[in-house]
């Protein structure tokens, strides 16, 4: 049977709130609503997850293919493109044969997804950055696109709440593009990173800071500090990085008000047309294929940007023939994913040392906040918006050493000091980047699949071209040698930061959601994930997604208290 963690028939009652998706935002929505005393049904398309299946302490030589399995590509040719889909954990990722989507010819898109309790929060990169009004109000500054209908001041208190609970390691920098937050002690920088920080500040005035990451540097909220074993994406036996099953979802269930239903593949929102309100959702049991309904007074979609939009598009009725909440026609449009592929790497021969297999593995890197098109830098001649860099520098084994024999064996051990940085650029919101339902394609549960149509444009290409040059100049200033440029534009989806497709706005004719993530059209349907983003900024979005979710939940709780739902 599916995992239903209450004794009563969970489908017999009407919940106050149905939350679809148990990842970073779904966990928060469930926690906030359940702890407020509301009855919550939390639906997850995958199975439950147990710490017993974590493999972060299993050496690769115990695996059949030592983590180079060619077999994964048979069932997960798309998922395998994700760095975190490994021989260790590939079953957490969707089976691509069961979960198809289509793309137009010449417009490849890689959609990397997990279906398991916690979703992508189990394997995410953990980088956590606030957005500023340079992002929320970017359109007012450069004339492109639309401002968000909310500002930094609206979200700042909720960033505080999320950061204090999650535990974000980082250093305050006072940077105009990257607001500081509630930080746990920062992780240390390596010698090469310190050198980079000093030289880059001196020559270019740019900030190099330690990454802000959802990893504990000290015991926090009942979780242990990081023990620096390295591969977070295989699970963490001390729960030191933030993932929803062992934090927010755990809290929601502990409240006694949350019913978790796993293996529930939601197909659509059920509407009561007479009242123009949702009355619940329908799902297909992943294992039995039985079709079931959950009844609720409100529905919060946190299924991941494209999955939430897919559910709305599949929820069309006579009144909403083009998808629920789509009277504006904007549903599915303005798809974004950060552009990646620009950067540089090299070697720092001036730094001595020896590679060490027993060095603690820091699950974090360095970050260089956006320095193009800032209030200080002024406008760039060739592009709008900008990019941030992630990277690192450390002594590592030299597996690329030349020669062979004993000389090669010794050279590998000797190691070399390597340094690299890669850009994450803003993806402009464009109407012609969109998703729709592919009428000829269904998933293994009979649910119509998406057709994803997205390309990066000239501005994104210019960002990555510039990122390659500025990365090289910063490496050069640090004393790097054998510098190699990378100025490509990777296919959309590679950043795994899908955003937009159900944007928020004050004008119901141009947007899907209002400022509290409520659909303009149906007052008890909400989308609380990356789908609501109006612009992408260039920072990793999960922290902002969580803060916006907590803000929207606070508003919804108030409305429940006022009996407005």
């Amino acid at each position, binding site marked *: 049977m599916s995992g239903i963690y209450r004794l009563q028939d969970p489908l017999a009652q009407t919940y106050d709130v149905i939350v679809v998706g148990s990842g970073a935002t779904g966990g928060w929505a469930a926690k906030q609503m359940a702890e407020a005393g509301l009855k919550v049904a939390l639906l997850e398309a995958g199975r439950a997850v147990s710490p017993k*299946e974590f*493999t*972060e*302490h299993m*050496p*690769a*030589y115990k*695996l*059949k*293919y*030592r*983590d*180079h*399995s*060619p*077999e*994964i590509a048979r*069932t997960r040719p798309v998922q395998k493109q994700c760095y975190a889909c490994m021989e*260790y*954990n*590939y*079953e957490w990722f969707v*089976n691509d044969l*069961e979960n198809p989507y289509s793309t137009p010819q010449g417009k490849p898109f890689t959609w990397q997804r997990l279906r*398991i309790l916690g979703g992508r929060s189990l394997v995410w990169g953990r980088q956590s950055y606030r957005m500023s009004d340079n992002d929320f109000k970017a359109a007012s500054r450069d004339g492109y696109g639309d401002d968000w209908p909310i500002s930094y001041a609206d979200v700042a208190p909720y960033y505080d709440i999320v950061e204090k609970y999650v535990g974000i390691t980082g250093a305050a920098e006072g940077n105009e593009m990257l607001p500081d937050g509630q930080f746990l002690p920062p992780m*240390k*920088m*390596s*010698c090469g990173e*310190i050198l980079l920080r*000093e030289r880059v500040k001196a020559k270019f005035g740019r900030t190099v800071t330690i990454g802000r990451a959802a990893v504990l540097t000290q015991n926090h909220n009942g979780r242990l500090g990081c*023990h*620096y*074993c390295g591969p977070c994406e295989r699970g963490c036996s001390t729960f030191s990085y933030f993932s929803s099953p062992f934090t927010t979802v755990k809290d929601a269930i502990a409240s006694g008000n949350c019913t978790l239903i796993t293996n529930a593949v939601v197909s*659509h929102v059920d509407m009561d047309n007479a009242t123009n309100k949702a009355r619940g959702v*329908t799902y*297909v049991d*992943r294992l039995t*294929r039985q*079709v079931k309904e959950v009844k609720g007074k409100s529905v919060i979609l946190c299924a991941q940007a494209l999955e939430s939009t897919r559910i709305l598009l*599949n*929820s*069309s009725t006579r009144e909403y023939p083009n998808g629920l909440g789509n009277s504006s026609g904007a549903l599915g449009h303005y798809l974004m994913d950060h552009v990646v592929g620009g950067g540089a790497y090299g070697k720092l021969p001036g730094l001595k040392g020896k590679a*060490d*297999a*027993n060095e*603690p593995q*820091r699950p974090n890197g360095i970050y260089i906040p956006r320095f193009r098109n800032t209030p200080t830098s002024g406008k760039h001649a060739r592009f709008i918006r900008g990019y941030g860099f992630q990277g690192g520098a450390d002594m590592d*084994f030299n*597996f690329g050493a*030349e020669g*062979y*024999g*004993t000389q*090669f*064996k010794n050279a*590998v051990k000797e190691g070399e000091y390597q340094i690299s940085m890669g850009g994450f650029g803003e993806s402009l919101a464009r109407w012609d980047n969109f998703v729709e339902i592919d009428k000829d394609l269904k998933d*293994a549960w*009979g*649910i119509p699949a998406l057709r994803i149509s997205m390309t990066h444009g000239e501005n994104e290409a210019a960002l990555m071209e510039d990122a390659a040059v500025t990365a090289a100049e910063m490496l050069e200033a640090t004393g790097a040698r054998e510098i190699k440029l990378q100025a490509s534009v990777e296919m959309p989806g590679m950043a795994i930061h899908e955003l937009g497709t159900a944007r928020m706005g004050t004008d119901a004719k141009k947007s899907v959601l209002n400022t509290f993530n409520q659909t303009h059209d149906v007052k008890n349907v909400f989308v609380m994930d990356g789908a609501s983003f109006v612009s992408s900024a260039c920072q990793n979005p999960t922290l902002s997604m969580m803060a916006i979710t907590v803000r929207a939940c606070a508003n919804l709780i108030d409305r429940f208290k006022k009996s407005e739902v």
Partner: protein
Amino acid sequence: MKRRELLKTGAFAGAVAALRPPFGQGQDAKSNTGLTPAQSGVDASNDLAAPGWKPKFLDEHQNETLIVLSDLIIPATDTPGAKEALVNRYIDLVLAAEKPEAQKAFVNSLGFLDGESMRRYKTAFRYLKREEQDDLLHALAYAKAGSGWTGEAATADPGHTHFEFLKQQIARAYYSCEAGEKELGWDGAFAHGPYKGCEHAEGSHK
């Protein structure tokens, strides 16, 4: 989407499912647990040392050639080398599961080595004297430079490309096995305390 449509397609999907292995089954999983072998605790580290091992993909000559080559590229020193670490068996295992183009690439590179050996010595690589094997590998192991007299650029060097490809396959196999991890100095522990980072005085890196 209408519930009726979903029931219809769901029922159809159920009927199809009954005719084939259950969805969610891992490519190598014995049961429908939704766990990878690693997550199930399977330890495959001794599989390749099983007595009576035979190659699944390579033929006998290719396998023996690979053993000789791997022993030259990563020899035993005060630690075991690639031959003792059975890297040929691991490479054979991976190749057997690889796509045809990857299989072909490896066989081509191994074939190139034998071709060069035949061209120079009229003998397959595995049967050469040790000095001859070294001579041949030295000719392939380093990238060609252009002319120091005319300034003419070096032409493409397929020999070096084939050598590097084989070397990287062997190195990956070796450094991912237990002997390789020990060669790098790993003590077998997974946590080594907090990351200390740079401990030098501020401004000391000039």
